C-alpha cells in the first residue's frame, strides 16, 4: 500500500496551482489535507502524474461570512470549521454533521473542500451542501464559475469539476428563520463511512429530506408537511426509489430500513427544533 510514483509541486499561490492543473491536462491531483487523496494514492485508485500541494498557499484558510453565507476556502480544515464561532446558530446542520465527518484525527487535517471534491457517496459534507442548496466555486486559468451543489455531484466520486479546475471555495447558505435542522447517521463505528445518513430541514409548510450513503450522489426530496402514515408512506416510497445496493457493510434491506427509521427520527428532530 504505497503510492505509485508522482512528481510533487508545492504551490506558493493559487495561480501556480492552476498553472499546473492547466498544463497537466487532467493528470494532476490537488493535495490539501490529504485525508481523501492519500488513501486513493496508496490504494492506487488514483495514479496522477503530478500532485499539487496547496497546503502552503497563504490565506486559503480564512472563512468569509457575508450576508449569512459561509464561504469556506480550499485550505480550511474540518476541525477548524467545527469550532467556528456561532456555527451552531448560523449553520446548525453543519454543526450537527461535522462531528460525523471521519475521526477527530482526520478532521484535524482534512479540508471541507477536499471532502466535497472527493465526492464519496457516504460523505457528510457533500450531503450538507446539497441539503442546504449551497454552491461550489471553481477556479481555473480560464476563469471562475459557480455550480449549484445539486448539479455538482454527477455520480460515484464524480463531479462537474473539469480537469483544469480546482475547488476554490464552497458557499453554505445560512439557516433560515422559521426552519428546523437535523442530521443523523448510522455506521458500524462512529467516524466510519455512513451506511445511511439523513439531513432534514423542516419549515411550517415543507419537509426537505436529503439522504447520503445509499445512492452514488446525495438524494433530495421536498414534501409538504406530511405526518403519521402519510409520512411513513413517503419514506417507504423513497426507501424503494433509492437504488440501494448490497455491500460488505450492509445489504439493501438494512439500507431501506434505515432510510425509513432514520428519516422518521431526523424529520421528528428537525420538527422539534422548529417548535
Amino acid at each position, binding site marked *: 500500500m504505497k*503510492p505509485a*510514483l508522482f512528481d510533487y*509541486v508545492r504551490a506558493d499561490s493559487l495561480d501556480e496551482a492552476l498553472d499546473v492543473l492547466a498544463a497537466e491536462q487532467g493528470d494532476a491531483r490537488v493535495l490539501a489535507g490529504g485525508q481523501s487523496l492519500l488513501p486513493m494514492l496508496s490504494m492506487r485508485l488514483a495514479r496522477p502524474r503530478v500532485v499539487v500541494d496547496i497546503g502552503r498557499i497563504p490565506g486559503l484558510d480564512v472563512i468569509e461570512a457575508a450576508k449569512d453565507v459561509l464561504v469556506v476556502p480550499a485550505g480550511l480544515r474540518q476541525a477548524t470549521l467545527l469550532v467556528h464561532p456561532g456555527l451552531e446558530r448560523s449553520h446548525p446542520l453543519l454543526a450537527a454533521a461535522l462531528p460525523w465527518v471521519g475521526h477527530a484525527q482526520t478532521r*484535524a487535517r482534512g479540508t471541507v473542500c477536499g471532502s466535497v471534491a472527493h465526492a464519496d457517496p457516504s460523505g457528510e459534507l457533500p450531503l450538507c451542501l446539497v441539503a442546504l442548496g449551497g454552491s461550489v466555486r471553481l477556479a481555473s486559468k480560464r476563469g471562475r464559475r459557480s455550480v449549484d451543489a445539486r448539479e455538482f455531484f454527477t455520480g460515484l466520486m464524480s463531479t462537474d469539476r473539469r480537469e483544469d479546475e480546482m475547488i476554490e471555495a464552497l458557499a453554505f447558505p445560512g439557516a433560515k428563520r422559521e426552519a428546523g435542522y437535523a442530521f443523523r447517521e448510522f455506521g458500524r463505528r462512529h467516524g466510519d463511512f455512513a451506511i445511511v445518513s439523513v439531513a432534514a430541514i423542516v419549515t411550517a409548510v415543507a419537509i426537505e429530506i436529503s439522504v447520503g450513503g445509499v445512492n452514488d450522489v446525495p438524494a433530495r426530496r421536498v414534501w409538504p408537511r406530511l405526518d403519521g402514515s402519510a409520512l411513513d408512506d413517503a419514506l417507504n416510497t423513497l426507501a424503494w426509489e433509492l437504488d440501494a445496493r448490497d455491500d460488505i457493510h450492509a445489504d439493501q434491506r438494512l439500507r431501506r430500513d434505515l432510510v425509513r427509521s432514520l428519516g422518521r427520527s431526523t424529520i421528528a428532530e428537525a420538527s422539534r427544533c422548529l417548535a
Partner: protein
Amino acid sequence: MPRLRRDETTSVRFTLNGEAVSRRADPRMLLSDFLRHECGATGTHVGCEHGVCGACTIRIDGTMARACLTLAVQVEGAEIETVEGLAPEPGRLSVLQDAFRRHHALQCGFCTAGILMSLDTLFSDEPEADEVRIRDVLGGHLCRCTGYEPIVRAALDAVSRLRSGKTNV
C-alpha cells in the same frame, strides 16, 4: 514553485520530539515510513495505511494526525511529535503511559502508540475531557486485544491525575 521529480529525493527538515532533523525523501514517501525507515523512530506503527486503524497517529504542529495520510515532503518545517517523546526521560513513564500499565490498557501493544498520542493531545487541549470525549477520540483507533474498556479506565484515571496536578511518575 519547485517541482520535485518522482525519482528525486529532497531534504526534509523538521523537528522530531524537539530535535531538529533532516532526512531525504522522494515525493511518494509516506510520513509513517519516513519516521520509521529514515529517522529510525519505530515507535509509530503502521497498520492499515489508509487512515482507518489509527496505529500511526502522531502530532503535527500540535494536532493529532495520521502519519500514513501525510507525505513526508508535506512536513517541511513542521514540529512532529511521536510516542518516543512522551516519556519524560528513559526509565520514567508519563502519567498517561503509567495509567495504561496499571489498568492493563494494552496487550499486544500494536495500537498503543497511536492511542497514547491521541489521548495525550486530547488531555493537553481539553484538560476537562470526560468519558464521552475520550470515547469519541478513541473512535479513531482500532484495538483488537483489550475490548477498549481498560483503555477508557486508564484514560479516565490519567486525566483525573493530570487535573489534580500529578506529574510524570
